[in-house]
């Protein structure tokens, strides 16, 4: 009945194996890889065997009163689409990890967390009720916290992990509130029931909360700053996190609930925040020097563009970019990982040396960069041109911004590519040796991804794979693709002129104010620092009050004591005082009687 859940099972088993055999690193890593392949096989089998697309299955988890809490899964096209993407990426990431994590300790912990992470994303892909979705959503958050902070003995990873989990926690609470508003209003958590439900103000509020939660997960303004910091995790984690899991969850959730957002009229909100995030992503990527953080800001841009597409009402455009971004971003991260490994884990692109001599590493990176910039016929162009095409038809302002962003993203990705190349290689024999000793599994994973980047357009032409229940699924015009490609090539030319020919230092130093305007993540981080300070000041105030309250109870008790000692003075054993008191008492009593 719940056949799709079986696809997740191998990964869960792998996770438990990692727990059991935690001292046997090599067993654990091959078991995890085998499990990921097994689940890919199961997913492919599912694909081929499912005839009724939008079948919905579920069982009751528990119920109380009128509300039933179900674990429901759906195998609608959009669900299977993400399930397949995660299914394809998981073995590749695990393959890459076999090489990458080879010299690192604590393999068992790594594969345990990664398996749960992948399983959570698969569950998220096929969840059909808010409760099921929320379970997967939180599991993603927790495991990403553990993975980002994987190297907890280093200085930066714990801080990065905390930043991530705190942002995600904000989203979780907003999401929980949104889900429960819906549950209370409609008495159900099923997506299918929500689509046919009558809209209410509670639903609108809940949708807004869920949208904000999606922004935290997908690293959109104003919650985007955790993502660049999350680069402190191991590179396979970054590659996984940015390509198919975690950050895609937010976009995907909005895509699944898209009809509700259309009818609630929240599309302009999505559009505006998507545009802001994309602009911030591009500008920071242009100014950043950290090899992985540039890619992180680029992910913010990509996700922003997906939200822009959703905001413009084009589910197909968003999902196309979603699809192609998976491969090129995974590929670029794998390349960055190889580059850092050869350069003794140096992270600054200005001090790194490129892999140009090692063609097996270099060519996949170039393919990834070209695809990202949007050069025809690599897959990236399909996503970008679909979005640009929709914008051109509906919103000219958004279209202009998107064109500029396209140019910017082409410049920063070639800057990323060219700066390590622009240094003479002569005195760095060690780096060259390092490049030669990069594990084959790392290279193999990148090559497979490069092939997928080239081959992805084939998938796009199969409507059965991407039938997103859309009537507006018209083919992308060639002119649009040409336009995107030309912009990308212009960007390439500029980047070549500026960075490949060694002018990069002038650019950075000559335009100091411009640099700060671009590198605005400092401002965003500063804002959060002040927010934390404000909370701390409030906490200090209330903490002081709490102490004073405690003191107050003590002074109440000492007041009691002083009353006691005052009274004690009367009871002093002097007979004349007692007699006097006795007489007064008798007189008063008599007076009372006579009255």
């Amino acid at each position, binding site marked *: 009945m719940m056949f799709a859940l079986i696809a997740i099972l191998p990964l869960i088993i792998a996770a438990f194996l990692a727990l059991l055999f935690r001292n046997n690193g090599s067993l654990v890593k091959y078991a995890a890889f085998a499990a990921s392949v097994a689940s890919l096989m199961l997913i492919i089998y599912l694909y081929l065997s499912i005839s009724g697309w939008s079948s919905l299955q579920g069982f009751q988890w528990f119920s109380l009163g009128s509300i039933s*809490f179900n674990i429901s899964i759906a195998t609608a096209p959009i669900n299977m689409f993400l399930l397949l993407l995660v299914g394809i990426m998981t073995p590749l990431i695990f393959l890459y990890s076999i090489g990458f994590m080879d010299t690192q300790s604590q393999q068992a912990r790594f594969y345990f967390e990664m398996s749960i992470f992948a399983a959570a994303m698969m569950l998220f892909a096929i969840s059909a009720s808010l409760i099921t979705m929320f379970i997967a959503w939180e599991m993603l958050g927790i495991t990403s916290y553990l993975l980002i902070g994987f190297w*907890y*003995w280093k200085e930066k990873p714990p801080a990065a992990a905390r930043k991530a989990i705190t942002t995600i926690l904000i989203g979780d609470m907003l999401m929980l509130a949104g889900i429960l508003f819906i549950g*209370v209003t409609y008495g159900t958590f099923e997506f299918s029931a929500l689509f046919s439900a009558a809209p209410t103000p509670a639903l609108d509020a809940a949708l807004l909360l869920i949208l904000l939660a999606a922004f935290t997960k997908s690293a959109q303004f104003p919650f985007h700053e955790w993502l660049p910091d999350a680069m402190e995790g191991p590179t396979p984690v970054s590659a996984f996190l940015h390509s198919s899991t975690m950050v895609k969850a937010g976009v995907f959730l909005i895509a699944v609930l898209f009809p509700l957002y259309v009818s609630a009229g929240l599309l302009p909100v999505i559009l505006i925040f998507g545009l802001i995030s994309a602009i911030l992503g591009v500008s920071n990527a242009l100014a950043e020097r950290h090899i992985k953080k540039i890619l992180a800001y680029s992910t913010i841009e990509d996700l922003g563009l997906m939200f822009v597409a959703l905001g413009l009402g084009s589910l197909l455009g968003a999902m196309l970019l979603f699809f192609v971004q998976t491969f090129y971003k995974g590929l670029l991260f794998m390349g960055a990982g190889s580059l850092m490994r050869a350069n003794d884990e140096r992270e600054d692109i200005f001090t790194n040396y490129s892999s140009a001599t090692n063609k097996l590493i270099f060519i996949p990176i170039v393919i990834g960069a070209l695809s990202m910039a949007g050069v025809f016929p690599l897959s990236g162009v399909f996503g970008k041109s679909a979005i640009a095409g929709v914008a051109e038809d509906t919103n000219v302002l958004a279209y202009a911004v998107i064109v500029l962003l396209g140019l910017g993203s082409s410049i920063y990705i070639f800057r990323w590519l060219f700066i390590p190349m622009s240094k003479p290689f002569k005195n760095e024999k060690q780096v060259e040796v390092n490049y030669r000793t990069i594990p084959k599994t790392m290279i193999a994973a990148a090559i497979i991804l490069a092939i997928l980047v080239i081959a992805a357009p084939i998938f796009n032409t199969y409507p059965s794979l991407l039938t997103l229940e859309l009537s507006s699924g018209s083919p992308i015009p060639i002119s649009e693709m040409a336009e995107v490609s030309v912009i990308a090539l212009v960007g390439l030319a500029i980047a070549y002129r500026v960075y490949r020919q060694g002018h990069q230092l002038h650019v950075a130093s000559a335009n100091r104010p411009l640099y700060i305007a671009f590198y605005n993540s400092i401002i965003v981080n500063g804002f959060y620092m002040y927010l934390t300070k404000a909370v701390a000041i409030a906490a200090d105030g209330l*903490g002081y009050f709490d102490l004073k309250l405690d003191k107050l109870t003590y002074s109440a*008790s000492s007041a009691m004591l002083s009353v006691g000692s005052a009274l004690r003075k009367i009871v002093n054993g002097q007979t004349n005082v007692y007699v006097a008191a006795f007489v007064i008492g008798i007189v008063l009593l008599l007076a009372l009687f006579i009255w």
Partner: protein
Amino acid sequence: MVPFIGILLALLSFGVVATMFSSEKTSKTLASVFSLLALVVVVAAFFYMAQTGSMNYTENYSYYIMQPSISLGFQFSPISFVLVLMASIVSFVTLLSGNVENESRKISSILILLFELAAIGLFTSGNLFLLFIFWDVGVISLFFMIYILGSSNRRRAAVKFLIYELFASLALLFAIMLVYFYTPLHSFDIQYIIANAGLISLPVQALIFSSFFIAFLINMPVFPVHLWLPDAHTEASTQGSMLLSGILTKFGGYGMILTFFMMPIAAHFEVPIAILAGFSAIYAVFVLMTQHDIKRIIAYSTIVEMGIILVAIASFNQFGISGAAYGMLAHGLTIAMLFLAAGSIGHMFAERDIRNLRGVVRNALSTSYTFLAGVFATTGVPLTAAFIADVLIFIGAIKTFSIYGAIPLAALLLLGAFLYYVVNKSILSTSEYSSNPRFIGRSQKAGYAILLSSIFIFGVLPFLLLNFFSNI
């Protein structure tokens, strides 16, 4: 019909006496065995009731006092059973592994068994007279627990605790007396009061209600009468803290639920009580942020959680009450685990200040993981019991207070954010780290395992207990 409650109470009473006559060496084992037997009886009772399909079940023994007629009546309701289950698990773990410091085993074992007896008696008592007796037995045994076994400042904290709790007892006694005199048949019986308290005139009801309310408010505790809790927890031994937060605060929660059932007038005060409780939760989380002692931080988190539970009780619908009961189950288990971990950290590193603790994970792996799991469980991550509780609590709150019911989530958010900060600051490390002079034994790890697996069992299989909540 098996008299489960009678067996439980007899077993524990016998256990207390037997432990008294045992030697210092064997006392801990003996007490643990009795506590384990009690847990087995509770589980057996669960399976029995699962077969009959109902958790409403009473046991009546001979009259305790003929005039006024007070019977030895006991009852299980779904709410009380959940709390009995929690109390027996937490007490067993406290006995088994709470004595991290490994001192005064005999006296602590006796007191813990006595407290378990009191807790189970209180949650199952069928009339207010017995409830009051068990209440005071529980308070007194914990008073000695703090007074004898705590850290250097313990005496002051113990007396403070006793004064607050005695004040609560006084209010409770006053309320019980008023109930007795104003119900038509002059009865202490809880079921009878629930059925007939509507006949009491409104001003008297208001008086009774506020008296009950103050008593349970102090015990839960909620702002502004929470001040005994941080001191008592900080100064108590690990075992004392586990019992205080895990079980004693639930006396108040259980009593508050009973009060809402007994006094129809409570419906008038739902909104102000919820505002007070929500404020208390948010207030406590801000105060928590200024604390440095890891045990004090966890102690304040109890105030946060109990505030949220009071919001649920105040919403007084099926979801709110079930959520409050389930929340007390989840919180009892989680907080006991956190205190056990914090106590172990304090014992191992001879340091509980988060500013001085560094890189605990290097030398105390299982304790660190347990602490982290406790943080997850506190923030209500799915598959832990707290998630089920939070879902039910906030459904209840939103049903009664509309969207304002979701506001206490902000307290949970801040609590989680700060706990992650604590994890970063003390558990994970930069290059420097605290060295540990001492190690913890196997029994502590067993305690972590029992509590952690209970948290997951009730988080993954909530229907085991929630099926019985369908008709409250």
